[in-house]
Structure formats: structure tokens, C-alpha cells
């Protein structure tokens, strides 16, 4: 065995866990706000159709939330088991941020969740809506703290050395680090889009089975309209996030665009097969000078290539392809949301319903692709300029890592399958009062 294998296994296992985990909060943050909306609609209108809608979606939310909680518990253990060097080096900053996540958010969600799910007949309407709102605020606050920490790992600031230990000099600087506002907004919009496509997709699935279901048509329209508003915002915020990355993590941008050599008037690579060993692109389709124009707003401006950062630059191919998968999926979502909003004013043709049903989990693909871009794009650093991933890995034997990796993969596979099957089944049955 060599150190590289253990590092790869530790990364594969942590990556698998966090990729599995991120699927569920991405949906539940948005769904929690949708539920507040449905609940308030019912309280105002007293229309049993809204109650039925609320009841259906609260079931879907409960399952999504449970998946998020159990995979999240795994994360809290793996920080120490897989990356002991991480807590040793930056624990004085990462620790408090994680603590605040658990304290302010996790308990808020988990406790009020019980009242929200089971307490409708036991508490007043006001208290029930309050509980639903607390769950939504809790999920959003969770994301706030986690993304503050994640952003700090990308663009650290506010830390000072005290003796041999790295500590926070200014917490506000740590939390509101340069990439945080962009990353948080980007992630919240991603959640909103993923949740909206889930709402629209499952409603479309119901309409395919029961075209007369008026409640499902209402939620299909709601999901589509929200997505149509959020999608262009996401394009804008994504672009701003990219410019912020160019400023603070230029190597990541060079990998995204597969720019190997620093130069002026750099072309934009639309598609290519990046060749890591030769340091060039094969089968490239390029638009001359466009990268310089997009990144620097000047067709002849100089753009730093990967050679400027060698050997500390991320692997190019995964970042390059994941970025194109994210943007491609995002554009598809934008197109469907706009087309759907227009067509749904008049009626719901079956082809459109099939399109939405097929895109039910499109948010997952875009989110995972985006997550791969940003996290692989940070390599070889775990905390940019401060801690290398290779220096943080633990000494768990490879056999134990491999065995538990296989075990987790099996359990996650079963859970994911059960989740998708159950959601499809619930939606197929439709909303019942």
C-alpha cells in the first residue's frame, strides 16, 4: 500500500457521503419554504384542496428530511476519522462554525419538525404555521453556517497565528469571507430550483396518471413559475460567482476553461478532451478571444493559464466536464421553466408533462456537478494556501476504509432507490384530504 491509495480511499468515502448528503438538504431547504406557503394558503382559504396539497408535500418533506438527518450524522463522525489533520490545523475556526450550525439550526429543525409533522390537530393554526416557519428558517440557517465554513476553506481570511495554533482574529471576516455571499446565494438559488423542479416534476407525474387533478395542476404551475423566476437569477449570480473565483482562485477558473498556458486574447474552449499529461486539449472546439472577453471584459487581455500555478493546480478534466454538465443542465432548466410557464397558461399537453416528469431530479445533477467543480477545483488544497488535502488524511487502515466504503455505497444505493420509488409512488397517488 502507499499513501496515495489511502488518500484516494479517504476522499472517495468522504466524497460519497457528502455527495449523498447534499442531495437532501438541497431539496428540503426549498421544500420547507414551499410548505410554509401551502400551509398559509390553507389557513387563509380554508380550501380542503390546499390542506390535501400540504399533507402530500409534508410527507415528501419528512422523508427528504430524514434522509438528510441520517446522512448528516455520518458527516459529523467522518470529519475526525477521515481528516484528523483538518481539525488539528484549522479546528479552532471550523469547530465553532460547525458548533453554531448544530446549535442554532439543527435543533430548531429537529424539534419543531415534530410539531410540524404530527401536531396539526394538537396546536393552534398560528403555532403550527410558526413551527413550519421555524423549520424553514432552521434549514436555511444550517446552510448559512455550513457555507460560511465551506467558503472560508476556499477563500480564507480573518485568521491569525497564536503560538503554533491558527485561530480566528475577526469572526465577522471569517464568516463573511470573499466568496461567501456569492456561494450562499448560488446555493440557495440551486435549492430553490431543485425544489421547484421536484414540485413541478412530481405534479406532472400525477397529471399523467390523473389529468383531472386540479391540485396537481396548481402545484405544477407554482413550481414552474418559481423556477422561471429563479433560473435567470441563477445565471446572473453564477456569473458573478465565477468572476469572484477568478479574483481569488484563478487556478480553478483556468481548470474550468482548460486554459493550459498564460496568454493574451485567449480563446474560449466550448468542448475538448483535456490531456493532463501532455498539458493540452484534444479535439478542441474554440471561439477565438472569447475567454479573455468573458473573464476580463477585454478581447486582448491576458489570462493566467494552469502553467502559472504548476504544480499546485487542480486536475483539469473532471472540473472541465463537471462545469459543462452544470451549465448545460442549468440552461435546460431555464428553457423548460420559461417554455412551461408560457404553455401552462392555456393547458398542460402530455409532452410537456413528460418533460417535467423527466426533469424531476434535474436539480440534483446540476447541484452535484457544481459541487464537483468547486471542490475538485480547490485541490490540491483543503484550505486554500493553508492546508493540503494530503496532509489532513488520517491513518485508518485501507482495509477498514475499503470495507466501510463498500458498506456505505450499498446502503446509500438502497436508500436512494427507496427514496425515488417512494416519492414517485406518493405523487402517483396524489393529494388526499
Amino acid at each position, binding site marked *: 500500500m502507499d499513501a496515495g491509495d489511502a488518500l484516494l480511499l479517504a476522499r472517495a468515502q468522504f466524497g460519497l457521503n457528502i455527495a449523498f448528503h447534499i442531495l437532501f438538504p438541497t431539496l428540503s431547504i426549498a421544500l420547507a419554504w414551499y410548505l410554509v406557503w401551502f400551509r398559509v394558503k390553507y389557513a387563509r382559504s380554508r380550501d380542503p384542496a390546499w390542506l390535501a396539497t400540504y399533507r402530500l408535500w409534508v*410527507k415528501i418533506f419528512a*422523508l427528504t428530511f430524514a434522509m438528510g438527518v441520517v446522512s448528516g450524522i*455520518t458527516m459529523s463522525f467522518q470529519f*475526525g476519522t477521515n481528516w484528523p489533520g483538518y*481539525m488539528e490545523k484549522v479546528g479552532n475556526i471550523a469547530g465553532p462554525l460547525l*458548533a453554531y450550525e448544530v446549535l442554532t439550526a439543527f435543533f430548531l429543525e429537529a*424539534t419543531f*419538525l415534530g410539531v410540524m409533522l404530527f401536531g396539526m390537530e394538537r396546536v393552534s393554526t398560528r403555532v403550527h404555521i410558526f413551527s413550519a416557519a421555524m423549520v424553514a428558517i432552521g434549514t436555511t440557517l444550517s446552510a448559512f453556517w455550513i457555507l460560511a465554513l465551506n467558503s472560508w476553506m476556499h477563500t480564507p481570511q480573518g485568521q491569525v497565528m*497564536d503560538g503554533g*495554533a491558527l485561530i480566528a482574529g475577526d469572526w465577522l471576516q471569517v464568516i463573511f469571507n470573499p466568496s461567501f455571499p456569492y456561494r450562499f446565494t448560488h446555493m440557495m438559488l440551486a435549492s430553490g430550483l431543485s425544489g421547484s423542479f421536484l414540485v413541478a416534476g412530481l405534479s406532472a407525474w400525477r397529471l399523467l396518471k390523473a389529468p383531472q387533478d386540479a391540485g396537481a395542476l396548481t402545484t405544477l404551475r407554482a413550481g414552474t413559475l418559481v423556477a422561471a423566476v429563479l433560473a435567470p437569477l441563477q445565471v446572473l449570480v453564477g456569473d458573478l460567482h465565477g468572476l469572484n473565483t477568478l479574483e481569488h482562485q484563478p487556478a480553478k477558473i483556468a481548470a474550468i476553461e482548460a486554459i493550459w498556458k498564460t496568454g493574451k486574447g485567449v480563446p474560449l474552449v466550448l468542448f475538448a478532451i483535456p490531456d493532463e499529461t501532455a498539458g493540452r486539449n484534444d479535439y478542441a472546439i474554440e471561439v477565438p478571444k472569447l475567454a479573455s472577453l468573458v473573464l476580463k471584459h477585454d478581447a486582448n487581455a491576458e489570462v493566467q493559464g494552469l502553467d502559472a500555478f504548476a504544480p499546485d493546480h487542480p486536475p483539469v478534466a473532471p472540473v472541465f466536464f463537471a462545469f459543462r454538465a452544470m451549465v448545460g443542465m442549468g440552461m435546460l432548466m431555464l428553457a423548460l421553466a420559461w417554455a412551461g410557464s408560457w404553455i401552462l397558461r392555456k393547458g398542460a399537453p402530455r409532452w410537456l408533462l413528460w418533460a417535467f416528469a423527466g426533469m424531476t431530479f434535474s436539480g440534483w445533477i446540476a447541484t452535484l456537478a457544481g459541487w464537483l467543480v468547486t471542490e475538485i477545483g480547490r485541490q490540491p488544497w483543503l484550505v486554500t494556501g493553508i492546508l493540503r488535502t494530503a496532509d489532513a488524511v488520517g491513518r485508518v487502515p485501507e482495509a477498514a476504509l475499503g470495507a466501510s466504503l463498500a458498506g456505505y455505497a450499498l446502503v446509500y444505493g438502497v436508500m436512494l432507490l427507496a427514496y425515488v420509488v417512494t416519492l414517485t409512488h406518493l405523487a402517483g397517488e396524489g393529494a388526499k384530504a
Partner: protein
Amino acid sequence: MTLDLPLAFAVLMGAAILAYVVLDGYDLGVGMLMPAATDDEQDVMVASIGPFWDANETWLVLGVGILLIAFPAAHGYILGALYLPVAAMLTGLMLRGVAFELRVKAQGWHAELWNWLFWFGSFLASFAQGYMLGRYVTAFQPGWGYFFFALLVGAALCGGYVLLGATWLVLRTEGELQRKAVAWTRWGLLWVALGVALVSLATPLASEIVRDKWFDFPRTLGLMLLPLATLAAWLWVWATLGKSEWKPFAGAVAIFVLAFTGLAYSVFPYVVLGWLTIWEAAAHPSALKVVLAGALAVLPFLVGYTVFAYRVFRGKARAGLYGH
């Protein structure tokens, strides 16, 4: 006088772990009792823990979180040494967590499968926790003897959780199921008595540090109050069973609090027995201060709405609640 931050965090961590063991203990115990009940009774049993289990498991995250944040060196060491049982426990908790939802939402044999996985997940998580406790108090020493000791603690903790779960059902159910729960409690009590007796005798044998702390006359005489109080709590559960609904549960909780106090006494001031004390393992004071301020601000609210949630769901559990 300055505040001893590592000590404060050790107390907080202990409180979080104790809260977890008691709270998730009763719902894990209910999960382990599932095969002994009829289908209808199973639905009532799950309904009795449904509104609480999410929040109960959050205490585990808080306990492990404090270990990670306040004693980072110990977190890596302990969880690295317990890597596989931790993975087993997490697998159990995950299976169980989704089975809560899926056993009522899935159809036909799928529902049966998730029902079975609910039991299996509860058992796996409980056993793994006991196993880890057994490894922890013997400082992770290698050898078959220590391995079997840890298995023994695993079985004992399952018995303890069954006791908590059965007394919880006595409190929260009625009729035939309640009568069954009374019988389960008696079995749980016998199991716990056997387990606690064996563990209490074996732990000093397995660990020199623990032995020296307990067998140090005349301090031993004062310490004997702890096992005596545990015995009294045990007898109280036995005596009040069938006469009172809440006293058996209170007695079972008392047994856990007393056993935990004994354990805390055995280990203190170490966080890794014989190797790392809480002061050696502690994070930088600046980080501890920030977290403590947040924890003290949030904890009253946390306790407040936990009480609120238990008030909302007071009274007897009914089947069907879990259909939302």
C-alpha cells in the same frame, strides 16, 4: 477566578451524551421490541416515538460535535480506533431513520422489509454503541479478552435500551400493549441487572486506572453509595411496575443517570483513558470561548422548545399518527 474551559466542555459533552443515551435509548429500545408485538401494536409503538426521534438523535451530533470541536485530538483518536463499529452504528441509524418513513409508505413486501430493517437498525445501532463503550473504557487495548468484554457491554446496553423502551411504552400506551410492555420491562430489568453486574465487575479487571479509582479505601465506602442507589432504583422499577405509569420510566432513567455518573467518575479527567486528559486534548481557548457563548445563549431555548414539543405530544400514543 478564570473559568476552566476544558472542564466546562467536558461537563457539557457529558450532559449531551447522557441526554442522547436516555432519549434515543428509549426510542431505540422501542425499535428492538418491535418483533414481540402484533402489526397493529407496532404502529402504536412507532407513533409513540415518531415526533421525538429526530430531535433525540440530534443530541448525538451535539455530543460528537463537542468532542470534535473542544477536544479535536481526542475525536480523531477515538473515532479512528472505533472506525468500524462507528460505521456499523451509523448504518443502523440510517436504516432505522428511513424505515420510520418507509415502513408506512412502502407497499406489500417492501413494507415488511422496512419493518424488519427498523428492528435490525435499532439493534445494530444499540449494540455498536455498547461495543464502543466497552472498547473505550478499556482504552482500545487489543486482544480477544477485550473483544469479548466489548461484546458483553454491547449486549448489556441493548438490555438497558430495552428497559427504557419498555417503560416508555408503559407510560405512553394503554390496554393490551401496555400489559405486554409491563412484561417486557421485567425482562429488561433482569437483562440490565445481569449486564450491569458483569460490566461493573469486569471493568476494574480490564482497566487498571478504573480499578485504582474505585478500590481506594476509605473513598470506596463513599463510592459504594452509587451502586446502592442503582440497586434502589432497580428495586423501585420492579416494585412500582403495574401500579404506576410514570414511576418505572423515571426509575429506568435513574438507573442510566447513576450508571453514567459511575462511568464519568471512572474516566475523569481523561478523555482517552490513560493517554489524553481533557486539558491536553482541548482546542484553543479563543475557539472554546466563542462556542461556549453560543451554547449558553442557545441552550435555554433548546430546553424550552424540547419541553414544548413533549407537552404538545403528551398523553397516550395512537396508531395512524405516523401517516401524518
